[in-house]
Every structure is written in structure tokens, then in C-alpha cells.
């Protein structure tokens, strides 16, 4: 029975992994970049310089909103955390959905000045791609990614059962041995970061549990809005009085909030019914201070600046959820831990990519005629090139578009996003048209060149190239450009290895083609 369990688990692992592998690679790659979301956004808005000053930028945002959005339904100010410089303000007109706010978002630097920064979605695009996908309604995206995550969990568990010698093979990586090498690399990426993979997949499902399993809420509350109200406290939306009243200085409210949180920084400010006598200011704690990611929100009377009754304290279940989401998103993580998250994320990318290649490496030897594989095999082969080299290439074109698109064009941020998918699509199409061995070499070389071009174009189009950044000790810009160069080196190495590989699949199974596809 033991053998048959392992066999059925191997079957499940192989096909669950293949079916969702390409999507999971997208989720892993974009999820890994999301740990540096703020830093990516900073690089993509080179106009924003200077030091962070939370109170000054909050006041600057309020001033701007008072001039430009007096009749709005709500104002929002995303305050800069320790990894950012600028606050982002936006407002919601009556009837607008949350996702339309980007149309009137603005950035305020640490001197309280509104900065005319280029229109970009920054690291946020990659973060949203991680669970919303793109070009389709977000609810679809979340369901598709949720199903993929569920299969990821299935693949992890079935993979552990399938893996015959999980301890004996713990450190094993035999290179240059064809299929064997791919299996070793796949196992290494999976087993060494197994705690991360399990945590990230499970907590990933938890982040969207209200989408996937809403029944707990529907059983206890007549409407979802009732639940939101119970979570946020009794004073949700105020009613409009119709009387105009000025707002008390935001600095005093921020100071009160900070005092309540033992000095922890506020992260978000919302002003409901701004300008009205019944206006309410809500300040939410920042995420850097605790693993529990959902920080407390305190409310103030906007006109007096006095704190309202403290919000309800939440039970153990809400705290558990908050910590799980926090553990997933890593918003609390200090820089060193953030890099460890990224290292584990990269191992996850490697695990998925090598798993996909392994599927072809294993089957190539069993093909009736290795030079003329069947349609399914060729499809998998091409999709592998298109995703493993194509997606990173698309991300590089996204960064390049950020530097190269003219700053004044309409829908500029949307065109940056389009550039990602155009770049990806072009490379995918190219991979479909070339012989597969050439496609691997050329697509990975193209990705290497694209990543090499990012710091070069940055140096040519801005005053914040690698050299000036190094001289000024600008850690974020140096790290970004260096990461681009490291990615370029990685793809160049992979392209070189694929190029050097002896030609054609050899007929004798004992002498399998050397490494890489």
C-alpha cells in the first residue's frame, strides 16, 4: 500500500504542479518583488527626494486636499513608513469606487510640498498582480489565484510524501546530470525553504479568506457592512450635517495617536465628510511596529481634534488572522528579515521553475521520437520558456517604460503596466516561433540584456544613476540598480549554460542532455 500511496501522490504532485505551475510562478515572482514594494515605488518616482517627515507631509496633504477636494466624500492619506519618503494623498468623490482613486492621487514630500512626480503605479502594480492579476475583475483574479494557492498546498503536501529521501538528500545537488540535476534543484528549493513555503501558501489563503469562505460572516451578520462596522467600532460613517466647519490641525491628532501607541508611527489617515461639522478623522497605526498587521484605528472629531471613545478590542481570532496576514506580507519585517523573506521567495521561484522544466526533462527520454515530440509536450516546453524567461523580461520592460515613457502622456501609469504585458507577450511569441533550444538561449539572453539596460537607462534619463547614488549613499537606489545587475548576471549565466549544452536529446537514456531544459 505504501508504494501505491506514493505513486498516487506523485501523480497528483506532477499534474497539480504542471497545471498551475505557470500561474504559481507569476504569484511567486510578483510576491517576492512585493517585499520591496515601497523601494520599487521610490525608484520609479525619482523626482521625490529628501528626508521623511511624517507630520509635515500629512499637513501638506491636508492643505492640498482643502484646496482641491473640499466637497469630497472622503480623503485618504497614506503616510510614509520608515522605508518611504513621501505621503500619498487621494480622495473619493461620491459614487467613485476605491480603485478609481489613483486618478487623483498626489505625492507630498517630507517638506510638505506636493511633488510633481511621474504618473506610475510603482511597486504596487507588482503587488496587486500577485493576487488580483491584471485586465480582469479583481474578484476573478482573487478566485483564480486562490484556486492556484490551494493546489500549491496540495503540491507541497503531496511533494513531501513523494520525496523518497527527504533527509538523505537534504544537501544533495548533483549538477550536469540532466534530469537528475533538475530533480535535485527542485527538491533543494522546496525542502530548504519548506517552512516558508508552507507558511506563505497557508497564510496566503488566509489573507483572502473572507472572499473564499464568507459563511462565518454571513451566518453571524445580516450584511457584510454590519460586520465591517462591528470590526471598526460603533462610529463608522458619520451623517452629513450640511454645516461647514474648519478642521483642527492634523499634527495634534497624529500626536495623540502616537502617544496612545507608545510612540509607534501612524500609517494611514482618513477624513470622512471633510469640511462638514460632523467630519471624522480616523488614524490607523502603521504596520512596521507589530507582526499583527491590522493596526488599531482611532477616531477624532475633525473640528475639535478630540479623540472619540476608544475602538473595541478584538478577540483572539481577529488577532490570529491579523498575525497570519502580517506573517505573509512581512510589513513588520526589518531590513535583514526582509532580505531573508526575499531569499525564501526566490527559492520558491526556483522550485516552481525547476519543477516545470523537470516535467519536460523527465518525459523527453520517454518520447517515441525525441526529435518530434507530441503537441502537449511542445506546448509545455514553449510555455516554460514563455513564463520563466518571459515574465522577468516583462518586469524589466515595466521598469524601462517607467524611465522612457514621456511624463505628460495621458494614462501614463496604465501604459507602464501595458509595457509589462507587451514585453512579456513579445518574448512569449518569439519563444513560440523559434526552435525550443534556441528559444531558451535567446529568451534568457534577452532578459539579461533587458535587466542590464535598466540601470543604464536610469543613469541616462535621471540624475540618480548608480554612480551618483553610490556617492550620495542612497541605499535604495544603489540596491535597486545592483539587484537589476544581479538579475542580469543570473539570466546571462543561465543563457550561457543553455547555449553550451551539447546538442539534441541523445537517444540513450543514460547520457541525458546536460542541464537546462
Amino acid at each position, binding site marked *: 500500500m505504501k508504494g501505491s500511496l506514493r505513486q498516487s501522490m506523485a501523480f497528483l504532485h506532477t499534474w497539480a504542479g504542471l497545471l498551475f505551475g505557470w500561474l504559481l510562478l507569476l504569484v511567486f515572482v510578483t510576491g517576492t518583488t512585493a517585499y520591496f514594494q515601497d523601494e520599487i515605488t521610490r525608484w520609479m518616482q525619482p523626482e521625490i527626494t529628501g528626508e521623511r517627515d511624517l507630520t509635515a507631509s500629512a499637513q501638506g496633504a491636508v492643505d492640498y486636499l482643502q484646496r482641491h477636494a473640499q466637497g469630497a466624500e472622503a480623503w485618504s492619506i497614506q503616510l510614509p513608513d520608515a522605508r518611504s519618503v513621501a505621503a500619498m494623498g487621494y480622495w473619493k468623490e461620491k459614487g467613485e469606487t476605491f480603485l478609481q482613486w489613483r486618478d487623483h492621487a498626489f505625492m507630498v514630500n517630507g517638506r510638505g510640498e506636493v511633488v510633481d512626480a511621474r504618473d506610475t503605479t510603482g511597486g504596487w502594480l507588482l503587488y496587486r498582480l500577485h493576487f488580483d492579476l491584471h485586465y480582469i475583475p479583481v474578484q476573478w483574479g482573487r478566485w483564480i489565484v486562490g484556486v492556484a494557492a490551494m493546489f500549491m498546498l496540495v503540491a507541497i503536501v503531496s511533494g513531501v510524501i513523494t520525496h523518497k529521501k527527504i533527509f*538523505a538528500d*537534504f*544537501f*544533495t*545537488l*548533483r*549538477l*550536469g546530470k540532466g534530469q537528475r540535476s533538475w530533480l535535485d534543484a527542485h527538491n*533543494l528549493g522546496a525542502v*530548504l*525553504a519548506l*517552512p*516558508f513555503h508552507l507558511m506563505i501558501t497557508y497564510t496566503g489563503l488566509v489573507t483572502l479568506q473572507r472572499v473564499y469562505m464568507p459563511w462565518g460572516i454571513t451566518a453571524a451578520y445580516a450584511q457584510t457592512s454590519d460586520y465591517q462596522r462591528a470590526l471598526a467600532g460603533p462610529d463608522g460613517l458619520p451623517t452629513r450635517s450640511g454645516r461647514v466647519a474648519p478642521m483642527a490641525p492634523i499634527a495634534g491628532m497624529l500626536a495623540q495617536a502616537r502617544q496612545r501607541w507608545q510612540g509607534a508611527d501612524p500609517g494611514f489617515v482618513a477624513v470622512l465628510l471633510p469640511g462638514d461639522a460632523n467630519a471624522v478623522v480616523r488614524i490607523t497605526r502603521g504596520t512596521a511596529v507589530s*507582526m499583527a498587521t491590522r493596526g488599531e484605528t482611532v477616531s477624532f472629531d475633525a473640528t475639535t481634534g478630540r479623540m472619540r471613545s476608544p475602538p473595541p478590542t478584538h478577540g483572539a481570532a481577529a488577532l490570529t488572522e491579523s498575525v497570519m496576514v502580517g*506573517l505573509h506580507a512581512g510589513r*513588520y*519585517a526589518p531590513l*535583514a*528579515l526582509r532580505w*531573508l*523573506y526575499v*531569499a*525564501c521567495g526566490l*527559492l520558491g521561484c526556483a522550485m516552481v521553475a525547476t519543477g516545470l522544466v523537470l516535467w519536460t526533462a523527465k518525459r523527453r527520454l520517454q518520447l517515441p521520437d525525441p526529435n518530434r515530440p507530441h503537441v502537449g509536450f511542445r506546448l509545455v516546453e514553449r510555455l516554460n520558456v514563455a513564463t520563466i524567461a518571459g515574465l522577468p523580461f516583462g518586469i524589466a520592460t515595466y521598469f524601462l517604460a517607467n524611465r522612457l515613457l514621456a511624463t505628460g502622456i495621458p494614462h501614463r501609469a496604465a501604459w507602464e503596466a501595458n509595457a509589462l504585458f507587451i514585453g512579456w507577450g513579445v518574448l512569449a511569441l518569439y519563444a513560440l516561433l523559434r526552435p525550443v533550444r534556441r528559444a531558451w538561449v535567446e529568451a534568457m539572453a534577452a532578459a539579461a540584456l533587458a535587466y542590464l539596460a535598466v540601470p543604464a537607462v536610469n543613469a541616462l534619463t535621471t540624475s540618480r544613476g548608480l554612480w551618483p547614488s553610490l556617492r550620495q549613499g542612497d541605499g535604495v537606489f544603489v540596491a535597486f540598480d545592483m539587484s537589476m545587475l544581479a538579475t542580469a548576471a543570473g539570466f546571462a549565466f543561465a543563457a550561457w549554460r543553455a547555449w553550451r549544452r551539447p546538442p539534441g536529446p541523445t537517444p540513450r537514456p543514460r547520457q541525458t542532455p546536460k542541464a537546462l531544459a
Partner: protein
Amino acid sequence: MMPLCLLTAIAGFTALCLGMGRHQRDVLGTSLSARASRRLKALGWTGLTASFVLAIVRDGPALGSVYALGELTLSALTVALVASRLASRR
């Protein structure tokens, strides 16, 4: 203290790796006695435990365990890559 945690974990994984029969042949080119292997494995587990404990002393149980798991992953990867390199050279 993070370098110390990493070094302890790398030392631990190195001892564990050298305590395993196949890696002895691949990396050292010889097999160690059963007793030496047992001792290496015990040393290895001690190193990993020490690394975990150090992380918790440094950052407390919650943050410390998250750090420790990441540090262990990175250390094991380092040892596996070095072992692979050494084995291919022989």
C-alpha cells in the same frame, strides 16, 4: 548578532552534512566511522539548536523564530551549494 546566528547554523549544517555517508564520500572522498558520523550529527543538531536559541535571545520568541527559520534556510542553502561544488571537483 545575525552573523553569529548564520555562522552557528552554517557550522551546524556542515557537521550534519559531513555526518552523512554519501556526503562523506562525495566531499571528503572517504567514509568516516559510525562513531564519528554520530558525533558529527550530534554536533550538527547542537549547532542548529544554538542558532535558534540565539535568534530568540536576540529578538524574542515571535520575531526570533521567524528570523531563525529564514537564517536556517539561508545557511542550509549555503552548505548545499558548497558541498555540491566540492563534490563536483573531486
